[in-house]
């Protein structure tokens, strides 16, 4: 048994920021992460992070209120406006804090942090470090955590929560190198495990972004919110879905169809390529569906050639490397073939502005949480921001909660029970003979999600998809483990993950089918309009052992801005 007052599951930006904050408040906090924190998915973020610093010559009169407005409008009014206000206000000090911690942001000539235009934003307010912003921020944050002396359990896979009479009291984790399961007792737990992109086969996300953290909370009875809102990024590489940052369009890249037209003219004449992601993805998908892909095939071009080699090399060196290595295309000489790809989970564990869930002692922050600041569609550059703003607030709130507790220690019984439960689960998986192949289930799930719950959605298609998913949920209970060895057992980790993924995917499916309107990223051909009268509300999904989730509604926090039609 290992004891820390606060256990943070996940060492991405959100987890690290929460840990640093709690440590500052004198809490005994530890990070437990499946990968070395510096390898977390946050490091893959490219384009940048938003804050109304007003450093760009064109953004001299930018304010946090304008940032808030853009965010709310981008969210198709589903975001909670008080949370958005909090985030956009905090954005400014948070970016300065990162700079003071050494984050290598790119600079303007006057030495201030450089900013670039991003989709859906009225001003160029996306701070960036070349096209490796996430990598830079993540390493800076790891360094801060090391300096603060936060202990890190690296390559420990958290398998489940410990819940004692409705209060979260720790986790059970698999020590991948040691090869054993251990119990972590804690006064509180923060889940910061990132997104669930890998439930789709066409995702830009890291392979470990499976949404397992969401599933842990979900299985423990905490609601997942707004799962149906899945962002499709307009520009993923054709063969691998690796992301070509929005920064590429921010720097002036064009989108071209098979006829060589800048087709965004038709869909967003003012914003052109810099329309928000949902609109741009739909535009691309429409071109493809109507036969105007390149050579009539299922992709279009992202063309950077006119930017010239010097600008590409200075501002988008990482994009160029990725295109060369993964698609065999040098953007200086050729246009890049791209397709819309699953990119971000707007939904997640239902929390308030301080990362609190409905379960005492359980907190969540980052992409796995849904505060909600992204509503139905996230603006590029807002999720890196979310991780640090709400990571900090969550760390502080958890620290405060622990300070307020009367008797520390918790009951050992619940922990031992949870540990035994996990061990049973492994034994059952390993002892099953002739069970289902987990990887066949995984493949069926990811392609079902891609085919049935993609950019455009429709009732009959979704119903068929939901049925398939329900079938997969039955099958996954029969999954068989082929390798039961102790050390670094990927077979076991990936099968565990799969069980969670199927449930999260079912949540997406059920929510999408239920929501009979189009809003933000959720675009239904059978209900093309937004329906504020009936659907200006969040969806809450509660886990049920059998079948899909039980759905409930939750009010949206309004107040600052009146919902209006979204035009770009």
């Amino acid at each position: 048994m290992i004891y820390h007052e606060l256990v943070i599951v996940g060492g991405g930006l959100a987890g690290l920021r929460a840990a640093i904050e709690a440590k500052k408040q004198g809490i005994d906090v530890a990070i437990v992460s499946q990968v070395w924190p510096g390898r977390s998915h946050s490091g893959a973020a490219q384009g940048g992070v938003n804050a109304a610093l007003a450093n760009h010559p064109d953004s001299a009169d930018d304010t946090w209120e304008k940032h808030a407005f853009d965010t709310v409008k981008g969210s198709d009014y589903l975001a909670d406006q008080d949370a958005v206000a909090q985030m956009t206000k905090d954005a400014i000090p948070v970016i300065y804090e990162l700079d003071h911690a050494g984050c290598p942001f790119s600079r303007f000539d006057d030495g201030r942090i450089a900013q670039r235009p991003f989709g859906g934003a009225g001003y160029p307010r996306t701070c960036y470090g070349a096209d490796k912003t996430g990598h830079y921020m993540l390493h800076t944050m790891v360094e801060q955590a090391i300096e603060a002396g936060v202990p890190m359990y690296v390559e420990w896979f958290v398998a489940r929560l410990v819940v004692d009479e409705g209060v979260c009291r720790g986790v059970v984790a698999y020590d991948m190198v040691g090869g054993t399961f251990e119990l972590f007792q804690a006064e509180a737990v923060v889940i910061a495990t990132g997104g669930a992109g890998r439930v789709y086969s066409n995702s830009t996300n890291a392979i470990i972004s499976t949404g397992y953290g969401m599933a842990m909370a979900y299985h423990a009875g905490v609601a997942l919110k707004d799962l149906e809102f899945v962002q499709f990024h307009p520009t993923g590489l054709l063969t691998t879905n690796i992301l070509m940052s929005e920064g590429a369009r921010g720097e002036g890249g064009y989108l071209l169809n098979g006829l060589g037209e800048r087709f965004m003219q038709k869909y967003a004449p003012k914003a052109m390529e810099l329309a928000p992601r949902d609109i741009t993805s739909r535009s691309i998908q429409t071109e493809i569906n109507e036969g105007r892909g390149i050579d009539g095939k299922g992709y279009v071009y992202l063309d950077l050639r006119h930017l010239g080699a010097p600008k590409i090399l200075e501002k988008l060196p990482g994009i160029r490397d990725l295109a060369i290595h993964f698609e065999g295309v040098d953007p200086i000489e050729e246009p890049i073939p791209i397709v819309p790809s699953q990119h971000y989970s707007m939904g997640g564990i239902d929390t308030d502005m301080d990362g609190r869930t409905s379960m005492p002692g359980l907190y969540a922050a980052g992409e796995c949480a849904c505060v909600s600041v992204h509503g139905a569609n996230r603006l590029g550059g807002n999720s890196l921001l979310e991780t640090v703003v709400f990571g900090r607030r969550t760390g502080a709130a958890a620290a405060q909660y622990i300070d307020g507790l009367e008797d520390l220690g918790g009951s050992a019984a619940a922990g031992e029970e949870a540990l035994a439960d996990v061990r049973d689960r492994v034994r059952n998986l390993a002892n099953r003979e002739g069970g289902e192949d987990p990887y066949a289930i995984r493949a069926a799930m990811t392609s079902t999600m891609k085919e049935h719950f993609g950019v455009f959605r429709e009732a009959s298609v979704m119903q068929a998809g939901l049925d398939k998913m329900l079938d997969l949920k039955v099958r996954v209970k029969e999954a068989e483990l082929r390798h039961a060895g102790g050390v670094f057992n990927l077979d076991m980790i990936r099968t565990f993950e799969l069980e969670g993924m199927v449930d999260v995917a079912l949540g997406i499916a059920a929510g999408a089918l239920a929501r009979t309107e189009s809003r933000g990223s959720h675009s239904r051909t059978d209900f093309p309009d937004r329906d504020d009268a009936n659907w200006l509300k969040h969806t809450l999904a509660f886990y049920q052992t059998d079948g899909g989730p039980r759905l409930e509604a939750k009010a949206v926090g309004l107040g600052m801005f009146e919902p209006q039609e979204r035009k770009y």
Partner: protein
Amino acid sequence: MPEATFRIKRHNPEKLDDQNGTGDDRYDDFTVPYESSLTVLEGLFYIQENLDGSLSFRYCCRAAVCGSCAMYINGTYRLACQTNVRHLDDGPITVEPMPHMPVVKDLVCDMTDFFAKYETVMPHIIRNSAPPEKEIIQSPEDRKKLDMPVDCILCGSCYSSCPSVWGEGNYLGPAALLKAYRFEVDSRDEARKERLPRFDNERGSYRCHTITNCVEACPKELNPTEAIQWLKGAAVRRRLLGRAK
């Protein structure tokens, strides 16, 4: 359908106590079919999913930014996720863990020392003055100095390739020194005496013999040697010429 043969070095720590005590070391051959393109990482997943569930390796981003999947492929350091089998020579693809590192299992190396050394060089900014209200001004020229070192993904290739590391367990190695450099050249860093002794010692920069294996090994095409030589010069400038930084 084209096929690729993977020849993978295996090691199982749970068999270390068997009669021969080698951890069942061997090379296993696997045949992986693919359509038009296949990265080594995808091949490893195919094997793990379909041919041998006990195979272990590290992975995360699959986009060459996280540094998890550095391996020794056909006798060269590569990121498995970034290596397309089409670009490798014909014949079996030999996949081994990074050389001269303790092996946890199969392709997974023990990186404990590597990270411990990284932490030794105080890999964080050091400021003595109060921070300004806004950002610390940094000219684009000063920022440019960071371009190379901040791209390090701490994959460990350079560290594994350095003969000075093999011989001397305490040598910090190229990656940690590159990190020290990353902060020492940062115009915002105000360290004077704090970080200097961490790298300016006989298990630090002076253990580097400019062998340059690290430069050849780095999958991100960085130049740790240059950084280390800069650090040696910096020590001279500071100790001998009394420069602040």
